[in-house]
């Protein structure tokens, strides 16, 4: 009997996976089985239905709609899938996965995230069994040290060092916290891990809790991820029932429980001291370090905070050994890294690759290059704390140091690809708008500095840039970097600095010539009717909200530039491509 597994991550559901599942289920007369899985990471092909026969994946069907359910049901009943050949995944799309090495995502899209048995069948909870029955906490920390695992939230701090500091710290109880406040716009790796493989996170955290001697684990999840919260809640309940959480775990005498805290929407809570304040029910404002959370964290007790992806690697490391992990990667950066590849790329989704691959490998190899084969312009890494890397640096290897040298950062893994239609100044203004809104307001350099930078950038994109603006921005950047209290402020200038460094000419075009080369900044554009192409159909004139288009019927029309509000209605209306933007 065949089995249809529907990918039900948030992306899949948004694309309609829930309806596909319901349609298949409605036609099921017991002649096939149904199941769900999490996010396989091929978001560009959602909704995805995998057809299994026993343990074997017979076929992966992509971009499935409700309307295909009838044919799929018939094909599964007969055991002959040729009737739905139109939905088969193409070889080049399948390559998206074949080029990856998956550790943190190793079960994502393959197992049922709502079933603890599915996880156990894949060797789940064996790592924690091994740790609790054969290793001392010091040995665990040593193994993590050998692995070279570093914080995947962005900063890349060695995980073993944090764990060790917390283990050594005086004070009880100790807390192990997971930062799942994935606020970086353009990143969704953590959400995918929690939605698709929640038990892997629980197991990784348990190993950490044992290593530092924690009695309680807390996962701080953004409230915008309702499905992740539901799946994790269920997983925690299942793990408790099976004795993997709670008192005397697996009869070893080790006790530790876990709870979820839903965040309430504040980007700054990704900063660990702000996250702790939020956990305590306060405004999420960061504080000066030291003392570090390892000594005085949640409720002033020793606390260790790592990112979801960091923990997602831990069980694998314990099973396969630290050396197997450190065998992958570069001198400075070990193991693999997950990226959320999005933007103007052909094949977007979740990508996990060994460190040391180049940006080109990811964007062109796995991502298939730029949509409509336009020209690659830049890739934004690290979100509002990161920077834009231009085409000339596409061969930069993925490594903490190499990426930092470009002015960007590894970041949590957001990778937004931009083509020639993206204006870099407007992009920078977009990020500064974000950081201005998200600045907690505690320190002046960030609160006022980001606001001033945002004002200058807004001026530039609206055609009121002044000579000296670039230099003023640079000066502000350095002052904010030096003076801001926490990571949010210290890194907020990065988008500005990198775009000035690599796209200074675009800034100058905006300021000196009042032109936007990418034709994105509306106030710098001019709409013009090409006389020869205009048929005088009057469609545009009727659509113009400010009546600035005039002309006789069947004769070329003209746009009154002094009245035009650059809404673009005319260009969208014209059937003869007679209107150009300059």
């Amino acid at each position: 009997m065949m089995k249809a597994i529907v990918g039900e991550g948030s992306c899949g559901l948004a694309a309609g996976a829930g309806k596909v599942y319901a349609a298949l289920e409605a036609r099921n007369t017991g002649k096939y089985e149904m199941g769900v899985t999490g996010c396989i990471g091929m978001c560009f092909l959602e909704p995805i239905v995998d057809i299994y026969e026993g343990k074997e994946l017979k076929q992966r069907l992509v971009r499935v709609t409700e309307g295909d359910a009838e044919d799929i049901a018939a094909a599964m009943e007969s055991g002959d899938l040729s009737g739905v050949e139109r939905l088969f995944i193409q070889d080049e799309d399948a390559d998206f996965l074949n080029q990856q090495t998956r550790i943190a995502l190793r079960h994502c899209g393959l197992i049922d995230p709502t079933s603890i048995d599915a996880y156990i069948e894949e060797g789940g909870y064996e790592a924690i069994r091994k740790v609790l029955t054969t290793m001392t906490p010091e040995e665990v920390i040593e193994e993590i040290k050998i692995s070279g695992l570093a914080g995947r939230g962005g900063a890349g701090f060695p995980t073993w060092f944090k764990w060790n500091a917390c283990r050594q710290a005086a004070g009880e109880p100790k807390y192990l916290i997971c930062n799942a406040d994935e606020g970086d716009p353009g990143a969704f790796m953590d959400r995918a891990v929690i939605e698709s493989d929640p038990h892997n996170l629980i197991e990784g955290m348990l190993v950490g809790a044992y290593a530092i001697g924690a009695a309680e684990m807390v996962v701080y999840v953004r409230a915008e991820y309702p499905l992740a919260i539901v799946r994790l809640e269920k997983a925690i309940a299942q793990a408790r029932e099976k004795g993997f959480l709670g008192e005397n775990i697996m009869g070893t005498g080790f006790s530790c429980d876990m709870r979820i805290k839903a965040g309430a929407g504040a980007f700054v809570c990704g900063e660990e001291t702000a996250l702790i304040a939020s956990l305590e029910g306060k405004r999420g404002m960061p504080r000066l370090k030291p003392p570090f959370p390892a000594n005085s964290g949640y409720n002033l007790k020793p606390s260790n905070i790592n990112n979801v992806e960091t923990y997602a690697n831990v069980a694998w490391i314990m099973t396969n050994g630290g050396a197997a992990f450190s065998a992958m990667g570069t001198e400075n950066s070990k193991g693999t890294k997950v990226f959320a590849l999005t933007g103007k790329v052909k094949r977007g989704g979740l990508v996990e690759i060994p460190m040391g691959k180049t940006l080109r490998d990811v964007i062109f190899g796995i991502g298939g290059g730029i949509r409509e084969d336009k020209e690659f312009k830049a890739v934004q890494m690290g979100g509002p704390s990161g920077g834009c890397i231009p085409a000339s640096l596409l061969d930069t290897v993925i490594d903490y140091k190499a990426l930092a040298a470009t002015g960007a950062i590894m970041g949590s893994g957001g990778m937004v690809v931009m083509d020639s239609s993206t204006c870099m100044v407007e992009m920078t203004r977009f990020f500064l708008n974000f950081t201005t809104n998200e600045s907690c307001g505690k320190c002046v350099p960030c609160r006022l500095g980001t606001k001033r930078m945002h004002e200058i950038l807004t001026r530039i994109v609206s055609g009121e840039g002044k000579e000296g603006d670039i230099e003023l921005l640079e000066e502000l950047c350095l002052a904010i970097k030096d003076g801001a209290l926490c990571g949010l402020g210290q890194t907020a200038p990065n988008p500005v600095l990198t775009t000035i460094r690599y796209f200074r000419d675009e800034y100058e075009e905006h300021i000196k010539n009042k032109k936007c080369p990418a034709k994105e900044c509306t106030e710098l554009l001019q709409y013009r009717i090409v006389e020869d192409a205009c048929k005088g159909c009057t469609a545009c004139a009727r659509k113009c909200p400010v009546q600035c288009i005039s002309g006789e019927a069947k004769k070329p029309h003209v746009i009154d530039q002094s009245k035009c509000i650059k809404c673009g209605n005319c260009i969208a209306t014209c059937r003869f491509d007679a209107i150009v933007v300059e």
Partner: protein
Amino acid sequence: MSECCCANKTSDLSLLDDVMEKYASVEGSLITILQHAQEIYGYLPIDVIYYVAGRTGNSPAKVMGVATFYTQFRLQPVGKHLIMLCKGTACHVNGANSIEKAICEELKIKDGGTTEDGLFTLKTVACLGCCSLSPVMMIGEETYGSLTPAKAVEILGDIRAKEAAQ
């Protein structure tokens, strides 16, 4: 206090009994309590803020401070359908601005506003995490991806038609 206009609000505070029993004396639960309160009332009415302050032993200023710090909390009621339009990086690159423009024109409201008939409230958000389907919006629990201005307007029209039929 009695002259203050806020005192005129009269929410049914007994709806919070269960939440208070569970969390009022648990330290650090303020955000959780406010989240439950918002689920119950749809927003955080001012008298609820005072009530929560009293029950948790916090000053109203502190509760208000928390309520205004986090973007999830609302101090005003919202329309029947809350439109959360994503303006994250990927959506921005793929044209979220044109979607916002189309929605604003269609509903004749601005970001944060509610339509006169109380049917829709528009709120732009930083990232919904469905970047590969960008541009994206969520209306209630439903996510809509790969939007175009026309598609967004059509979705709103469908909801309107459904409401009118009821």
